[in-house]
């Protein structure tokens, strides 16, 4: 039967095959255990490091593969077929890496990118604070110049891989009176004096991914750790998130595909009223919608990612669309997958229960889906006032 053809190049096909192989052979067999124990997936991080996938988006001169947003999405989608907690750990490292690729000095790129590309050190990205989530401009963490150093104080909250990662992009206020132009991005390393971590959060889903506080208490870092220019902090954060959001969409697509596959194969073997439940139109229609929405989400994510690779200027709207649509689809598809499996779907014996718990976070992190709608709405307002 014909499948939608996305006309991947041979290299893109290789990325898909490799990520798929890791998802099926390495991630899938242990995902239930990781979910139960909440242990950090170091084992799989090693396999991913071995596979070169950490370096997809990193230029070749810094040890990467030199590909773009689309190839990253392909890998994220396939890995998510196995487990999105593992994939989030992988993606968080990229979220730490993107700003260095986009805004780092040559010196910083040489110092950090080869390790991120090889997976020997994980990256992370820290913006959110207790009182500044969607309203990122409300962050309180401060950085003050002191001779050849910057001194950071404050607390970041819910940072993916905090404590496990080693290279952090941190957004802090340097010139509060300048408002949104008063934030600056810094590179902070695990082990820097005055930099510590809070306890690991207990979560509804995404349990193999670690989420912690980061605490800065007179944390002194050398001057050359400033990323980009003073005052560019929020621009760096926004550009990083714009580039990363299609990837969250891709995670949604991989998760939706996994839930769909589980639901269809279950429906083909569950007998009720003397027939397989897939013969009931109510079930068929649910599966048909799941399949169609998943494919539509994939198409949008791929098209947006390819557009970004062709020209990455002014991508806020399309990037928000890819994240919004594909993650709303993932929530719906995983919820419907549980419905198709009935009581069995609600039990931990089947993977759809975890998939539904995991899906929820996709509508929250990297900007809630309400915020994505705000971004799209504001862009529309701007676009239409030009005419």
């Amino acid at each position: 039967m014909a499948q939608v053809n996305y006309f991947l190049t041979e290299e893109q096909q290789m990325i898909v095959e490799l990520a798929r192989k890791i998802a099926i052979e390495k991630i899938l067999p242990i995902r239930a255990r990781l979910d139960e124990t909440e242990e950090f997936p170091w084992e799989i991080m090693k396999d991913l490091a071995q596979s070169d996938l950490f370096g997809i988006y990193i230029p070749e001169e810094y040890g990467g593969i030199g590909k773009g947003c689309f190839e990253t999405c392909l890998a994220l989608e396939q890995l998510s077929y196995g487990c999105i907690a593992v994939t989030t750990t992988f993606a968080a490292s990229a979220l730490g890496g993107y700003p260095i690729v986009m805004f780092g000095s040559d010196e910083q790129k040489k110092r950090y990118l080869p390790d991120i590309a090889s997976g020997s050190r994980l990256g992370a990205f820290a913006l959110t604070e207790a009182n500044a989530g969607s309203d990122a401009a409300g962050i309180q963490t401060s950085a003050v110049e002191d001779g050849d150093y910057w001194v950071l104080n404050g607390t970041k909250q819910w940072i993916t891989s905090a404590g496990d990662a080693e290279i952090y992009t941190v957004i802090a206020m340097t010139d509060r009176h300048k408002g949104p132009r008063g934030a600056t991005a810094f590179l902070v390393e695990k082990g820097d004096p005055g930099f510590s971590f809070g306890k690991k959060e207990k979560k509804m889903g995404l349990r193999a991914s670690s989420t912690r506080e980061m605490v800065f208490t007179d944390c002194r870092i050398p001057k050359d750790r400033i990323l980009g220019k003073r005052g560019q902090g929020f621009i760096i954060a926004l550009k990083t998130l714009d580039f990363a959001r299609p990837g969250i969409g891709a995670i949604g697509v991989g998760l939706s595909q996994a839930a769909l596959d589980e639901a269809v194969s279950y429906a083909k073997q569950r007998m009720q009223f003397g027939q397989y439940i897939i013969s009931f139109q109510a079930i068929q229609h649910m599966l048909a919608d799941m399949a169609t929405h998943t494919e539509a989400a994939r198409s949008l994510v791929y098209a947006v990612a390819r557009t970004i690779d062709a020209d990455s200027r002014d991508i806020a709207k399309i990037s928000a669309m890819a994240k919004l649509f594909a993650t709303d689809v993932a929530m719906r598809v995983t919820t419907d997958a549980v419905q198709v499996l009935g009581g069995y779907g609600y039990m931990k014996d089947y993977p759809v229960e975890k998939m539904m718990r995991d899906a929820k976070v996709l509508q929250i992190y990297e900007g809630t889906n309400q915020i994505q709608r705000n971004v799209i709405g504001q862009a529309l307002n701007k676009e239409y006032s030009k005419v």
Partner: protein
Amino acid sequence: MLNIAVCIKQVPDARTVRFDKETGMMIREGVETIINPVDLNALEAALAIKDGHDARIHVLTMGPPSADKALRDALSMGADQAYLLSDRAFAGADTLATTRVLAAALKKIGQMDMVVCGNQSVDGDTAQVGPGLAVRLEMPSVAYVNALELTADTLKCIRMTGHGHDTVLMKTPCLVTVIPSINTPRMPSLKGKMKAKSAGIPVWTANDLGLSMNDIGLAGSPTRVLNTFVRSFEARRERLEGDADAQVAALCERLVAAGVL
């Protein structure tokens, strides 16, 4: 620099294999091929040595032209050079004829410090090729190896036996066959896959290896397969009724009758 050879075999993926009940032959259609699983452990053992030593890994296989894929998979995991030994005249080879071809190819490649093979293939299942190859290469060998450690020119091998293990020290050049528990094969890498795609793989025929037609293929194989058949498992099914005690009693009665208890 060390030269390490790894012999691999392309085999049908057991998960996709079906048999024709009448003829006892495998239905080739729709069967996917993979590298014989334990050969991946052999490759990993070689790669692990390369991780700690300056080494070059040569992979070779005797097989049809389509075995090229198995070699490229091995290259994508980190092998340096692959060789395909392919000739219609090799067809029908038993383990003796196979080792003659492999030995000739290894001699042509050059002096090896180590040869690593999987213990046995999932299709042939004889475990003869490794040790046979060692004889033809005039190298010492240890089979069923579960751990390897190379120090200078001494290879320390842990060999599993039915009741424990032996520790064997062997001077290189030598040959080992490994068992699946020795390691976990690594994932291929993206850079490896890209390199493997365009890698030049020489294809050597009987002629290239200077082999006589009497030594290879069916003609060079003293083994005669008299018959193959498909084992069928036709279990009788019966539902035992009653409470647990009654069911246990009924089950025991049947097991005694069947001579199991």
